[in-house]
């Protein structure tokens, strides 16, 4: 009877140690910053993570009305753990639109946008993300990433006066 008790303890201990060790490895790899990111990340791992749809819709509405700072606040509320690729894509897009200028762009906002679109790509299944939104000129995360990266690069085309006629996407 005691032998069976010992065996149960050993099996339970082994399972517990495995789960705990996996959790530690996950923490070191994913580097979550908040408790919301920890819980969100864990639920996303088992496929149970859901965004707050109402906040997402609010964010989308504000995004379409060109209120980008407000839209980002709503998107952040919708996806507090930063685990939804589509929401991260819209946040990145809002940084692009906020930072875009006819004669110059805000590099800080572009850098933040680049960080978010990289996150969106990392979260998307197979690292491929398409957003079917007719209001967007760039519907894939790869296009958005290229546009943001190109904006941050300094090259001869930056001094082309015809740049003022380019169109925001």
């Amino acid at each position, binding site marked *: 009877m005691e032998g069976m008790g010992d065996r149960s303890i050993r099996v*339970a*201990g*082994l399972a*517990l*140690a495995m789960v*705990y060790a996996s959790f*530690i490895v996950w923490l070191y790899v994913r*580097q979550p*910053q908040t408790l919301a990111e920890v819980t969100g990340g864990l639920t996303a791992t088992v496929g149970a993570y859901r965004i707050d749809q109402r906040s997402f819709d609010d964010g989308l509405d504000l995004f379409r009305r060109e209120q980008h700072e407000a839209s980002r606040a709503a998107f952040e509320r919708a996806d507090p753990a930063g685990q939804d690729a589509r929401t991260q894509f819209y946040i990145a897009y809002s940084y692009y639109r906020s930072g875009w200028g006819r004669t110059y762009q805000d590099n800080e906002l572009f850098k933040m946008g680049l960080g978010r679109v990289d996150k969106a790509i990392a979260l998307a299944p197979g690292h491929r993300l398409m957003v079917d939104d007719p209001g967007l000129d760039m519907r894939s995360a790869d296009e958005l990433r290229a546009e943001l990266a190109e904006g941050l690069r300094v090259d001869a085309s930056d001094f082309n006066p015809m740049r003022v006629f380019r169109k925001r996407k």
Partner: protein
Amino acid sequence: MKATIEAVYLPLLFLTVALLGGLRLDERVTFVPPPLFALVLGVMLFGVLVRGRVLAPDRLMSASRPSLENLNGLVVILSTFFAATQVFNLVTPEAGLPFLLFNVFLFVLLVNTLAVSPDRVSVLRSMAIITGAAFILKFIVLGAISAPGESMLKRVLYALLEGVTLGTLTQPQLHPAAGYLAFATLALFLIGLAMLPSRTRSVALIKLDE
């Protein structure tokens, strides 16, 4: 009780040390993996533990034990190694001259401990002194040098280290809770070491025939 210690307490204790050893509190929380040299120091500390009979690997894994017990033993051995590595990650400064000096200091201490072939109690005392000294140097002395403002300790250190450019010694400013967390982590590690299945030096009493 033996099964509970081996399968539950020791792995959880050492895994907690491995988790907290790389935790850095700042404006944001980060988990820092151990630098390569911490792995080297971890291997050396593991050698010291085995040589000093603080850890008896054959009491955790051997052909005479059932496979489940051997698996539990393997978990204890691995978690002890990772905890040892993360303890060095914790007590070593982040960069610069102190990072180099601390690593050399710890390396020499461990080589010395390996060379003298100490007993269990000496190894445990030695571990407490090594980790305690490194804790004081990093979290109290270097912490005071790197903190903003002019404290009494900082003025004393300026006087003692006259001629040394303090710019080479300063480290990123530590979070107020970092020292407490490190202290708790080191205490857990030392408790874990004391709980490891050990081997006492065997003594034979031989009666000579008259």
